[in-house]
């Protein structure tokens, strides 16, 4: 019996090298070669479908013409679109943030004497209020030439427009005060006025003028309290509205469910 201690170590690599010895006999290769030749001839004679030739077509030197054609097409499209954009007048921001800031600055710079019971008009401002709604649909078609102009309105837009129109009809002054004259988009009344009138509607009122307007509405016809409302309530409301401190504290007055709503 051989001495096992003198044997070299058998590793997994030795076992795997054993698989190198798993080889077919020599005569196998003769058969293999004849079969391969037959298959090779069959493959040569076999008509390949057209789509199998696409990779060969792509590997040929057709990249340059394809790339050049793509570049030319892209350039033509770009130039055409750019020239169309250049012919159209440049987009002017209709109600720009800068214009708002300028207006606000002018109002703040108004003389202190304006804190009287008269309405103080802001300095002359470009009549840009109504142009937002007038110009935008036309401009939209220019900005998106590939899309058809949208004529239909959403239900919410219709509802808002109807509400504003109703408010303008029933309470024109209140609507003007409440929206500061800047929301005359849906109302047709302001569109037919001359620019000067529109500037007037866009004027900014002081707290004193607001108070005077509200009191005038209450005293004349606008505010119609419930018939069964006690007279004491009306008097108290008039007195409260007449107070200067109170007048300075609210920002918006409206009519709601037959009552007065104040927003602070």
């Amino acid at each position, binding site marked *: *019996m*051989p001495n*096992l201690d003198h*044997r*070299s*170590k*058998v*590793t*997994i*690599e*030795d*076992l*795997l*090298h*054993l*698989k*190198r*010895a*798993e*080889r*077919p*006999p020599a005569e*196998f*290769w003769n058969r*293999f*070669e004849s*079969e*391969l030749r037959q*298959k*090779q001839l069959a*493959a040569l004679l076999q008509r390949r479908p057209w789509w199998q030739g696409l*990779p*060969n077509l792509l*590997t040929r030197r057709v990249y340059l013409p394809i790339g050049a054609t793509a570049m030319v097409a892209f350039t033509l499209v770009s130039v055409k679109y750019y020239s169309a954009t250049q012919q159209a007048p440049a987009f002017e921001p209709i109600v720009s943030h800068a214009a708002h800031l300028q207006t606000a600055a002018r109002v703040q710079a108004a003389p202190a004497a304006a804190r009287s019971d008269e309405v103080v008009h802001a300095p002359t401002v470009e009549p840009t209020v109504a142009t937002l709604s007038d110009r935008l649909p036309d401009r939209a078609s220019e900005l998106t030439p590939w899309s058809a102009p949208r004529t239909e309105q959403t239900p919410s837009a219709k509802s808002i427009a109807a509400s504003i129109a109703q408010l303008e009809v029933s309470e024109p002054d209140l609507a003007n005060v409440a929206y500061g004259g800047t929301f005359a988009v849906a109302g047709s009344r302001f569109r037919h006025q001359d620019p000067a009138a529109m500037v007037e509607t866009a004027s900014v009122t002081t707290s004193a003028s607001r108070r005077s307007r509200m009191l005038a509405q209450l005293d004349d016809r606008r505010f119609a309290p419930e018939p069964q409302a006690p007279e004491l309530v009306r008097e108290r409301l008039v007195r409260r509205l007449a107070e200067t401190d109170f007048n300075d504290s609210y920002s918006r007055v409206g009519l709601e469910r037959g009552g007065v709503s104040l927003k602070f």
Partner: protein
Amino acid sequence: MNLSRVFTRTIVTSPERQQEADTDFAIVKRVQGGDVAAFDQLIRKYRERVFGVVYNLTANREDTADLTQDAFIKAFQAINRFHGQSSFFTWLYKIAVNTTLSHLRKNRLRSFFSLEQIQEDSGTQFVDELADKNGINRDVYLRELQEKLNEAMQKLSIKHRTVITLFEIDGLSHAEIAQVMDCSEGTVRSRVHYAKQFLQGELAKYLR
């Protein structure tokens, strides 16, 4: 110098492999030029190696013969697409491995052994010693070892089996295997390590 040749030189680092790659590329050029018979030289040169790779992946000699022939036919049909970006044998190995892996995935459930005879040559001396130690007839022991080895190999995943076959049995480098299998060298090293550990566990009885 042709750019593809430069690229090939960066991949094939061994001088012997580089010389072999140059020789193969010259033959490929002849085939591409219309000398179809020149492809037979490449078949004779690589048929045993390709057969070995496919056989060690499938452990079935009938399937191996068909798949090896298919690999050579695919290589012949696509010879015009070979521009020397890699060595020809790496490209051929890639075709053979992909053909075999596709076959194995299609016939995942149908697998049975059909093993070749082990040709006696150097490297099998340890079998005599192991057979003596276990008191078993040498041929019987060799047959048992072969079956256990193939069983363990078939338990590996296809990717691990491919990597261990190419690295340990065919002697390809990590870089060449990475090129054949379209993965990184780190992935190849990791798979080789895992496959060896797995086989050691499976064949512990035959190791000492």
